[in-house]
């Protein structure tokens, strides 16, 4: 059966969608099959987890800046872990561990990819919903359960997991080594196992949907870059997440059933353990086999979103569409063979280090192509400074700054001295943390009207939010490079034990002050987000004059997305400011964009897409 016949099948099928059975509260808002609702569920869960994760960073930033000071705020949030306002070193480690876990997995993976893949894949490829609505619902609820378990683990008697977000054994395997490796770590592992199941269900669904449910005319080379990035992200997740699952499983076995996958020759708390023959280095390999692709799982959707927003608001086609797709694919491929650059000084064979240096620095090439293409995209544009556009430009800026220091940490010889120092912390926060967060925010500001039936977020508050955050993020992470180059290791509760680092105290204060300002600015966003959900101004149907299909739907959400037939596609997603044959005006006079569902006109030149 041809794809065409499938499409017409679907069109027949949709006719009964208009008069749908009245949905109950439960089927509409809780166990919804509708991708638009699931996307909102992901977004709101992601934002709630984000608030928790970011507030944690506030607590440990205060501790780092003023280690001798007693803060009542510690007692309020941490209770018994901060008697008299002095933070317990154990809970400091727990805070950094859970901050990392929440931000990487729950906010920037599920929050970002979950939200926008779900919202945009069906809408942008012209499908009525995901291939399997049920799997999609399962995927969200598994994610929700794993988020709930992770949150619950914060209240465990001996404290939550505190072996760092990378949970290297033996520290994570032995409760004798650190209290957080008891019940807290058990819950952490269970939560992550469920998270992986959720992620795999989601990824499978995304891939199948993109490959099979594109509307007539939507060839792969006409897909918007957002959809391309979601496809590639889902493939990377599918390849790498199962490996983390196996690592987690083996760690559970070592912890609870006495196996020795990762443990050997250990003398702790006055006795020799029976474990023999395992290797922590094996765990590091398994962990980073996911862990490194993971950072691309985080950044690729942000790249797609940014490409789309830059083109739309510059009123220009994205520069080098094919190169953008090719670089997405090559980044995805390379991302699975560079994990060893986290392990240059782990004790693995130095020759492996050479290989991983080589592959790692190769990744800089497609990344550079992307950065230059984005810059060329805004060159000679007619830039509409919508809030989403500012975040997109901010993304390119932090991605360049953070990406460049990757040349340092990716080079095995240079990594020797900066490995596990604050230099690395600064590097990955800029390149993946801050950048991906900017992508997330850009997406929210841009597609908010699509999510909340036409309502726009407040522009003025958006501008204020952006500028404070943009300045604050550099204010936190630029000085942090110096702390790292001064030789200060990360995950230190305080550095007052080393008089040598006493002169770093004021840098720490500067970073914390910027952090407080930046975090406060996020409340402007939260207010704007919640307020606009209910009272935002209704915008026009296609507020940003974009070409993609999601803007051809009505404000009102219906199951099946389009009340009538699914629109067909006749052109790529980037016909912005295209001139007619005589170059006297745009192809459609007075309108600088041609939506994808408009057939080719007589007065235009055909492009390759």
């Amino acid at each position: 059966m041809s794809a065409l016949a499938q499409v017409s099948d679907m069109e027949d099928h949709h006719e009964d969608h208009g008069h749908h059975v009245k949905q109950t509260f439960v089927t509409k808002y809780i166990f919804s099959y509708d991708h638009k609702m699931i996307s909102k569920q992901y977004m709101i869960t992601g934002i709630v987890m984000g608030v928790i994760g970011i507030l944690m960073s506030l607590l440990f930033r205060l501790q780092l800046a003023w280690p001798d000071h007693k803060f009542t705020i510690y007692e309020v949030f941490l209770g018994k872990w901060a008697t008299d306002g002095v933070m317990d070193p154990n809970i400091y480690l727990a805070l950094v561990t859970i901050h990392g876990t929440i931000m990487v997995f729950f906010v920037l993976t599920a929050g970002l990819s979950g939200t926008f893949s779900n919202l945009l894949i069906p809408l942008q490829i012209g499908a009525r919903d995901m291939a399997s609505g049920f799997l999609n619902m399962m995927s969200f609820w598994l994610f929700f359960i794993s988020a709930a378990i992770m949150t619950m683990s914060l209240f465990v008697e001996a404290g939550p997991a505190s072996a760092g977000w990378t949970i290297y054994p033996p520290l994570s395997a032995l409760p004798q080594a650190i209290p957080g490796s008891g019940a807290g770590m058990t819950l952490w592992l269970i939560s992550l196992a469920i998270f992986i199941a959720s992620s795999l269900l989601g990824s499978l669904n995304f891939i199948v949907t993109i490959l099979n449910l594109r509307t007539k005319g939507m060839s792969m080379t006409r897909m918007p870059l957002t959809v391309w990035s979601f496809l590639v992200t889902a493939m990377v997740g599918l390849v790498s997440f199962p490996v983390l699952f196996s690592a987690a499983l083996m760690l559970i076995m070592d912890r609870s059933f006495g196996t020795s996958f990762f443990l050997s020759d250990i003398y702790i708390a006055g006795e020799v353990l029976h474990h023999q023959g395992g290797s922590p280095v094996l765990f590091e390999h398994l962990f980073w086999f996911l862990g490194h692709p993971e950072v691309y799982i985080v950044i690729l959707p942000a790249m797609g979103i940014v490409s789309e927003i830059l083109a739309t608001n510059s009123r220009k086609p994205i520069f080098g569409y094919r190169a953008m797709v090719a670089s997405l694919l090559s980044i995805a491929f390379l991302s699975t063979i560079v994990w060893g650059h986290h392990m240059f000084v782990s004790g693995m064979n130095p020759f492996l280090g050479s290989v991983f240096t080589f592959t790692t620095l190769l990744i800089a090439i497609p990344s550079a192509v992307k950065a230059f293409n984005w810059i060329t995209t805004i060159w000679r544009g007619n830039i509409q400074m919508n809030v989403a556009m500012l975040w997109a430009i901010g993304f390119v800026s932090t991605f360049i700054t953070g990406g460049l220091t990757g040349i340092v940490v990716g080079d095995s010889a240079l990594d020797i001295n900066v490995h596990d120092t604050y230099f690395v912390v600064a590097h990955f926060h800029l390149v993946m943390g801050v950048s991906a967060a900017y992508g997330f925010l850009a997406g929210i500001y841009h597609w908010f009207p699509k999510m909340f039936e036409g309502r726009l977020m407040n522009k003025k508050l958006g501008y204020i939010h952006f500028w404070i955050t943009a300045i604050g993020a550099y204010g936190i992470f630029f000085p942090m490079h110096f702390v790292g180059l001064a030789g200060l290791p990360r995950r230190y509760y305080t550095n007052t034990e080393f008089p040598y680092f006493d002169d770093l105290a004021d840098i720490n204060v500067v970073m914390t002050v910027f952090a407080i300002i930046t975090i406060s600015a996020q409340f402007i966003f939260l207010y704007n987000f919640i307020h606009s959900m209910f009272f935002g101004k209704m915008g026009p149907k296609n507020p940003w004059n974009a070409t993609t299909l999601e803007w051809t739907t009505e404000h009102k959400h219906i199951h099946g997305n389009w009340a009538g037939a699914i629109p067909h596609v006749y052109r790529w997603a980037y016909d912005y400011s295209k001139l007619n044959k005589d170059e006297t005006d745009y192809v459609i006079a007075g309108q600088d964009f041609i939506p994808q569902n408009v057939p080719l006109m007589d007065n235009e030149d055909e492009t390759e897409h």
Partner: protein
Amino acid sequence: MTVFLVILVILLFGVAVWQMNRIFQLARIKSTGFEDIATAKDNNEQGYLMIAFLIFIYVITGVSFYLWSGTLLPEAASEHGGEIDNLMLITMILIFVVGIFTQALLHYFAFVYRGNKPRKALFYADNDKLEFIWTIIPVITLAGLIIYGLFTWTDIMNVDRDDDPLIIELYAKQFAWDARYGGNDNTLGEANVRLIEGINILGLDPADPNAQDDKIVKELHLPVGRRVLFKIRSQDVLHSVYMPHFRAQMNSVPGMITQFAFTPTITTEEMRQTDHIQKKVKNINEIRAEKSKELAAKGEEPLDPYEFDYLLLCNKICGVSHYNMQMKIIVESEEDYNAWLAEQPTFAEQLKR
């Protein structure tokens, strides 16, 4: 009863707010507006802010260097460290040139091409030549960096036993370091955690003849100019041997022996006399003096003045006192080193005691 009434009032108040909300919403739903889409005025203002932001990035870079370059590590105190510093310098220059240039382009374009009514964007979708250029330039630059980096890395990591390096074991446990010298035969005795007992804290094999003259110490002394090969062990969890002044780092892994070798080139005494360290120590002591004043006012012990020493830090999260797992390193002349080592008891002597 009053509790019930209070709850009822709160509930009713809630319902009232909700209803008012709905009315408010229904009244506003028709208001379609373009206020929240960027206007020509917004484009203009935000365009200028982009330039301001570019200036901000440059300023924060400059200010950071001005304020904090004194906190950075001093020159490398090891032979291979110079190579690393050289590579770092080249990489940093590259990073700054590329960073300054691309940030300028990005923000300048955002400013110049800020939207206004009469402007028409250029339909510019592709240019193979341009894209080839900015693919090939990174390829060439990175090839250079990779080759330089790999040569340096191989030089550092290849340990040649023919150099007759001094062999020292670094032994990690929560939360302290021990060092073991091979003694007169420069050979370490066999050891295993299963042999740890009483005074034999490193689990040496008492039957191994090579172990008899081993010397276990709490302070690391290194003779200047002699190549040192560190054999690294851990008894419990992962730790990392980090000696930033020597540009040296290697994890210590339970169940295996890892290694790292370098040649110290600057003695502790010489390092204390360098300009960079003198300035740094002076600055640190000013900070400490000020803190001491505060402490004295509260009736607490003042801080000791600080004197520079090389450090070995733990750089892999290892538990609650990870932040205070350190060992002092002293680099000294061959004679001083020999004199110090002669004073240390051997393992056999320790066992007899």
